Each structure stands twice: as structure tokens, then as C-alpha cells.
């Protein structure tokens, strides 16, 4: 191969690379442009109109940074009070989500595996999940008082239904031949469930988990609005009562960050767990 040829190939390669990069760059600009544009528009309108209820976003950001770093040197200037409020909400969300997902998975597998069980139980489940779950908060308070267990149980109950439905659908869609084969080879039932049923239903289970996580964030906020002594939702209500609009927005932003963060983590986990699924689909 002559030098000019190699040069040409190299040029073509860098050209293609450059084009791919510029198209990706354009994608980022097209995607994020409107987001930044909207924030700037909000800023402009809020500053010029002096909107009381919609303070300028930069001011909200400033409030957030100021109060987050208002701690002393011992804690790297982080405001520990603020972090403990976030921690309280986070613990409720995660615990409620975990309990609800595990319970939902178990129930979903039971219903999905046997058509007969499903026939008997489905109407009850359809009814229970039709209840707008926030309507049950007063009942959870009667049953468990004002404790954190009340909130965790409420979150678990509320977000479990999304997992139940998706798990059952996933389990039901398993190729019957696969289970028959396992029975033929005398694979014990628990092993069948762990090695065949759950992996096969995993894509659907994750679809349910995604909805359930968003729901867990939502329901934790509602439970903190209704009755709590700490947490992000409680802080939002407190700022409202004191008419501290900026602080209220700050806590809403904190909530948004928590919601995004949890979603991103679940997305990451899903990518790992379902790698085989994506690869098999590509083939």
C-alpha cells in the first residue's frame, strides 16, 4: 500500500469520525437547547415580571447552593440538617420500594405461574389496585400510627401493584415448553423459579420496577405532606406555611434531583441485569 493510499484511508476515517461526532453534537444541541432555552425564558420572565410564586431559576439555584454549603468546616461546609432531611425521605423511598417490589414479585410469580390461581385471585387484585392508593393513607395512620413504618408500609403497598401486574404478565409469557423441559429433567420447583422463570420475566419486571420507583418517590412525598416531622415533602409544606416561596422551590428542586438520581441508578442496574436480553435481541 502506498503512502498516499494510507493517507487517503486515514483521511476518510477521520472524516467519518468527525461527521459522527458532529451529528452527535447536533443531537445534544437539539436535545438540550430547548431545556436551556426554557430555563432562560423563565429567568427572563420572572425577573422582568417580578413573579412572586415563580422565582427566577438562578435565584433558586443560589438558595440551594447557599443552604447546602451553610455548614461548618467539620462537615466540609455541608449543611447536615438539610442532608438528614433528604436522607429521611430517601430511606423511606428505598425501603418502601424494596419491600413493595419483593412482595409484588412474589405475588406476580404466583399469579403468573398458575392460570388457576390467577383466575381465583385476579378480581381481588384488580379491585385492590383500582383503589387510588393515596386514599388509604388515613387507614394506614389508623393501623400504624404516625410512625415511619406507616409511611414505609404505605409506599410499599402503593408501588407494589405495578410490579405485580408486570411480573405476572412476564411470567405468563414464558414459553411453556421451557418449563415442561425443566419438569422433564426433574429440576426442583424453587430452582425452576430462580433459574428459568425470574430471568425470563426480568425485562417485564424491570418495566414494572421503573414505574414503581417513580411512584415510590411520589407516594413518599404525599405521605410527608399528610403527616410527618421530617423529609423533603415535610419541608415543602413547612416553607409553604411560612410563605418562603424560594425555599419551597429549593426543596422541589432537591426532590427532582432525588427522583432523577434514583431513576438513573435503576437504569444503570437494568442495563447490567438485562445485558443478555439486549444482546439476544440484537442478534
Amino acid at each position: 500500500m502506498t503512502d498516499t493510499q494510507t493517507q487517503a484511508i486515514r483521511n476518510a476515517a477521520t472524516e467519518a469520525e468527525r461527521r459522527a461526532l458532529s451529528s452527535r453534537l447536533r443531537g445534544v444541541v437539539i436535545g438540550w437547547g430547548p431545556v436551556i432555552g426554557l430555563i432562560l425564558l423563565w429567568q427572563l420572565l420572572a425577573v422582568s415580571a417580578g413573579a412572586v410564586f415563580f422565582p427566577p431559576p438562578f435565584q433558586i439555584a443560589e438558595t440551594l447552593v447557599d443552604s447546602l454549603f451553610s455548614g461548618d468546616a467539620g462537615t466540609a461546609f455541608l449543611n447536615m440538617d438539610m442532608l438528614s432531611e433528604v436522607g429521611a425521605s430517601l430511606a423511606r423511598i428505598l425501603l418502601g420500594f424494596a419491600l413493595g417490589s419483593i412482595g409484588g414479585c412474589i405475588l406476580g410469580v404466583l399469579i403468573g405461574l398458575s392460570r388457576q390461581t390467577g383466575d381465583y385471585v385476579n378480581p381481588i387484585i384488580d379491585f385492590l389496585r383500582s383503589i387510588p392508593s393515596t386514599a388509604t393513607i388515613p387507614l394506614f395512620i389508623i393501623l400504624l400510627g404516625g410512625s415511619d413504618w406507616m409511611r414505609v408500609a404505605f409506599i410499599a403497598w402503593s408501588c407494589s401493584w405495578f410490579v405485580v401486574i408486570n411480573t405476572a404478565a412476564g411470567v405468563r409469557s414464558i414459553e411453556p415448553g421451557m418449563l415442561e423441559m425443566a419438569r422433564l429433567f426433574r429440576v426442583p420447583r424453587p430452582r425452576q423459579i430462580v433459574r428459568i422463570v425470574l430471568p425470563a420475566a426480568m425485562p417485564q419486571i424491570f418495566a414494572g420496577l421503573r414505574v414503581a420507583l417513580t411512584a415510590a418517590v411520589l407516594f413518599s412525598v404525599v405521605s410527608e405532606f399528610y403527616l410527618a416531622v421530617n423529609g423533603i415533602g415535610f419541608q415543602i409544606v413547612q416553607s409553604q406555611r411560612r410563605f418562603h416561596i424560594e425555599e419551597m422551590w429549593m426543596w422541589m428542586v432537591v426532590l427532582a434531583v432525588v427522583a432523577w438520581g434514583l431513576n438513573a441508578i435503576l437504569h444503570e442496574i437494568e442495563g447490567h441485569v438485562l445485558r443478555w436480553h439486549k444482546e439476544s435481541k440484537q442478534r
Partner: protein
Amino acid sequence: MKENVELGTPPTAERERSTDRASATAAPRRRSSRRLWRGVAGALAFGLLLELVTRSGLVSARFLPPFSEIVANVFLLFGREDFLSALGVTLGAWLLAFVITVVIGVSLGVALGLSDLAYRMTRTLIDIIRPLPAIAMIPLILLILGRGLETALVVTVLGSVWPVLFNTIAGVHDVDPLAKQMARVFAYTRPQVLTRVVLPSASPFIAVGIRLSASVALISVVTVELIAGGSGLGAFIGTIGATGNSVALVYAAIVVTGLLGLAINFAMELVQNRVFAWQQRTVEG
């Protein structure tokens, strides 16, 4: 239209097929009636279990009143004027919010789904907004609009518009471009392409989104009522829960709220089956 005529089978073949179909549907019908009986049996057994659990003293009646008492309280509730008005308020707010949600979601979704640039420009924005709970804005909206229908409407539309919006965008965006071009070749105007090609082919997606939005909207309306107080089922349950002297009444009110949710789901399914019967037929055929 022409296609149908050409594809239509001769009468004899049609008759043969219909007898075939009759024998083929007998089994599913038997199966669906068996499912119905099993469902009824399951529900009765569940009720009996709840009754026994309390009657035997396993669970204190302070936490779980006997099932029969809950059922009796459901009937009692329908005789109470304040409850009926709460039910009406919730249903009215839900209906209004639902209609606004569908109108906004579908029209915005069609607009965003039709243009490729708009689709790409809004995808990131929507991904950012989607996981945020609109319910977190209740305290803010309460400050601005006060306790009442407007607050419920704003929060509910903000929270429940997403499923319709996504599904409409996805459905409209996924329409076969060839079908659109074909319609253009046959001299359809742009609005005609929209109503005769794009919307029919996107409608199954849209219908699923509408159903999801309907249930999200009910949750949202009840939540606003619960947090804000005032009127509606959420506020009613909150009040009787706080007085704490009749647990059975709280259970009964929750049961009625569940029935309302069930009725809404059922109505959505009914409408969907009616409107999209053609779709199921094409799937079968």
C-alpha cells in the same frame, strides 16, 4: 374500500368459516365462564377469610372490622348526603381534568410526533420532566389558586398528561412513512392524511395512554382533596379517618373509592373495545 371488495370471500366460503369459528369460540367461552365463577369464588373466599380473621379474634376489630360490617357501611354511606356530594365532587373534578388532559395530550402529541425536528427537540425535555412528581406542586398551587376545583385541575392535568402525551407522540411518530406518502400520492390533503392515516394508525397507542392517564388522574384528584381538605372523597376519608371513631366507615369509603376506580377502568376498557373493534378484527384475521 376497494380492497375490501376484492378481499371479500364468496358467500359459501364465508359460511363455512363462520361455522368453524363457532366451534372455535365455544372453548374460550367455556373458559371465560369458568374464569368468572372462579373469580366470584375467590372474592367470596377472601371476604369470608377477612370475616373469620376478625371474628376469631386473630386481628382486633379496632384495626380490621368484620367484613360484613364494612359491606354494611358501604350501603350506609350511600344514604349519607355529605358522602354523595363528596363522590359527586370527585367524579366531576376527575371528568373535567380527564377531558382537559386528553385534549392537551393528544393535540400536543400529534403536533410533536408529526415533525421530526419537534420530536427530537422535546425528547430530552420530556425525559427530564417525566420522573418528577407533579403532586409535589400541590402546596405551591394551593398558595396561588387556593383550595378548590382549580387547584385539583392544574395539579391533575400537570401530573396525568404524560401517558397520553408519550403514547400519542410515539404512535404518531411510528406511523409508516410509506403509508403517509401513499396517501399524498392519492391527492389526500394534509388534514386528510392526519385524520385518515395518521390518527387511525396511532389510535391504539393513544387509547392505551388515555387509559393510563385516566387512572393517574383519579389518584391525583383524590390526593389533592386529601392534602388540601375541603370537599371530595379524599377530604371525606381524611376527615372520618382523623375522628377515628368508625374504622369500618373508613374502610367502606376506601372500598367505594376503589369501586369508582374500577368503574373508570371498566368504562375505559369498554370504550376502547368498542372504538377499536376493527383493530382486534385485523389482528384475528
